[in-house]
């Protein structure tokens, strides 16, 4: 894996998200209450809602448009809804958020 420095962990609000723009679209980078980070596609498969604007609870996020809930770990829609968002490797090291962009760059190429 090749890790790319994205931002300081502090730049992402606790129980919130920021977006990273890439050629493959916007990636939402989430920070949980436990200071874990997760990166997923920012687009809800239902109606394209910006997931980075959703409420982050536990290791899930709720889409702000129609309340679809996705697991940040697997990208799977929870409950009765069926759908999947892409997830990307992300981690925290020394207070910096690192992402592996190789998958994304492949998509973009």
């Amino acid at each position, binding site marked *: 894996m090749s890790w790319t420095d*994205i*931002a300081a962990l502090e*730049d*992402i*609000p*606790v*129980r*919130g998200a*920021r*977006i*990273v*723009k*890439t*050629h493959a679209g*916007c990636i939402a*980078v989430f920070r949980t*209450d*436990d200071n874990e980070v997760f990166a997923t596609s920012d687009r809800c498969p239902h*109606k*394209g*809602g*910006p997931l980075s*604007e*959703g*409420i*982050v*609870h*536990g290791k*899930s996020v*709720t889409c*702000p*448009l129609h*309340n679809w*809930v996705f697991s940040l770990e697997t990208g799977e829609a929870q409950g009765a809804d069926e759908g999947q968002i892409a997830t990307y490797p992300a981690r925290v090291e020394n207070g910096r958020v690192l992402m592996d*962009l190789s998958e*994304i760059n492949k998509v*973009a190429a």
Partner: protein
Amino acid sequence: MTQKLVVIGAGMASGRALEHLFEAGADWDVTLFNAEPRGNYNRIMLSPVLSGEKTYQEIVTHDEAWYQERGVDTRFGTRVTEVDRAAKIVRGSDGSEIAYDKLLFATGSNPFIIPMPGHDLEGVIAYRDLEDTERMMNMPAGSKVVVIGGGLLGLEAAAGMAARGVEVTVVHIMGHLMERQLDEPAGYLLRRALMDKGITVKCKANSKEILGQDGKVRALLLDDGTELPCDLLVMAVGIRPNTKLGADCGLAVGRGIHVDDQMVTSDPDVLAVGECVEHNGAVFGLVAPLYDQAKVVAKTLLGEEAAFQPREISTKLKVTGCDLFSAGDFGEGDGREDIVFRDPARGVYKRVVIKDNKIIGAVMYGDTADGNWFYGMMKDGTDISDMRETLIFGPAYQGGASVDPMAAVAALPADAEICGCNGICKGQIVDAINAGAHDLAGIRATTKASASCGTCTGLVEQVLAVTLGDDFVMPSVQSVCGCTDLSHEDVRRLIKSQELKSQQAVWQELGWKTVNGCHVCRPAINYYLLADWPVEYQDDPQSRFVNERNHANIQKDGTYSVVPRMWGGITTPDELRAIADAAEKYNAKTVKVTGGQRIDLLGIKKEDLPGIWYDLNQAGMVSGHAYSKGLRTVKTCVGTDHCRFGTQDSTGLGIKLEKALWGSWTPHKVKLAVSGCPRNCAEATCKDVGIICVDSGYEVSVAGAAGMDVKETEFLAKVPTEAEALELTCAFIQIYRENAKYLDRAYKWVAKVGLDWVKEQVVDDLANRNALAERFELSQSIYRKDPWADLAAPQQAERFAPVADFTLEAAE
């Protein structure tokens, strides 16, 4: 032939090893060095000494006489300066040279001192030995001490000093106390118990620097700029094996002195025991494994076979009134299951972690009586599949009939207390039922049981069910969401009665099933907390729906609509110009006049929000809160200023109302209107609060609607003056804020509580009206401000842009 054994260190591990050795009748000539000027005492009992529950004499395990009887040559207060392994000689700081056949390292550990600026100031100590303990014991009542470290030792130090009247603050870097032994819920309960003892606990707190004055400690400075003044600073952040002497003489040393299963170091004639050793990569700090090691090292010295095997250990905290127990591994992991029991009212929490039908960890707080039973099964690897359902209730409930809570209530004696707040026993409730109170409301009205904090509501219902049999239908309350069984009403009542002032307090005290709620309950809880504790609670943007976090309405394409406030629907040519300029500059796709007498700019990109807000602010405009569960607009007609029918200055009152109410958060949106005469051009009779001006005063009506439901307002009261109309409106909004369920519009809430009750509170009871208006004003002193101004500031504005942009980078 008598062999010579030299022991370095008279701590708990070597003390125990010597006991085993002499009990076995070994014929050894022992010399014991100790840097501390005393023999072996029970170091883990220093905390009771500190708190005054024990004296030092009571915790001495081996006194002078004990060593003398066994012919031990004791050299207390003498440090070993050198070990010459080739010559097999130990040299002491007193100049002595002692030859050995076998040498035992029991050098223990050193407290870790964080090398932050100021750590060498006078008044910065560790918590390790009797000297440290005495230093803390000598702090006079009322002095201030900061303890860095919320682990076992730090908390014992804090509690011990607090018991002596010292003002103690614990600073802990992690999110909850004792994170190695406790999970978050148990850590929370512990924190609460310590705070009840008057200890201030700061978690997630980073120490930055120790500040001094004339070479002496003065305060601890945290990362966030907080200064914690102190007369003494105790660092209890951990221990490091004391390996210096071992390393100096060339023994294999890692984190500790390397030993094998027989406790032999890299030199076959040198052994080591206790906190100074490293065994298979592990180092040790708790007493149980040290005693196991002592047994093994004694056998090895005696030439017997023995091997040290680390085992699961359990921990208890020696702080009076804080009952906790922790054992094994309680982290989350694949294939692990939790069984959790919570009784927040009693402060009891139990969690057992199970893997492959075996207990692998347990955390208990409040009621630890069964700790050893769980621990025993964990050590033995007992298969618990048969008792799974009742496991968490402990040994008393195993093997018998299945536990039925109803049977338990039925079996309670008549004098068993049900409602702790009002001291109501089961018998009194049964009497009330027999006298005709056949539901919860009846019981509350006649006995007061469950009418205060409400935590006994379930029990009262069970008493009803047991007494009435099939005649009683258990009411089905709608819970807030899947995270809790409590209803909105229960949660609101409990937040008030138990004075819950943080989300964490709600999750823990009310036994939430999720870590931090979900998108349904979080916004509701955030609202309840800020409505009930406007001063103490800080609004949490991350618990808000996107519109209230971004202070604009998200549209279906992800752009936003921006609506500046127009007080009472009045604007000026300058404001209109600024709005037109902003609409052009930020490419508003649509400009629309709203139903609430203002102008909506639609299609604004998220990253442009701070910019458009800044521009509108510059023209004197603030957020119109067109997105909030809060005050939206106050619609007005032109009133006496221009209208030939107008009876009062309706526009003026509308503006005054809007200036009083703007920025306030409410359970759902709130819309007002003021009409200058009964012709009602402002359509005031379908608003949450509508005021109709008449010659003799102001008719205030409430609980109207013109949305999903259309409903005419109901008359609340007529008041003669504008000031009274203002106060009455504020009081009504406040009583709605304090009582309604989140997302209930005022008309829905009034239908639930009845308009008569509302009238009693805000019309008939003038003192109460006044108090409500004052509480509203207190809340508004914090929330009556423009969120746009804050968010348009440069450091905040950044948050609206992507945190990184790789589309630019790749293009280069």
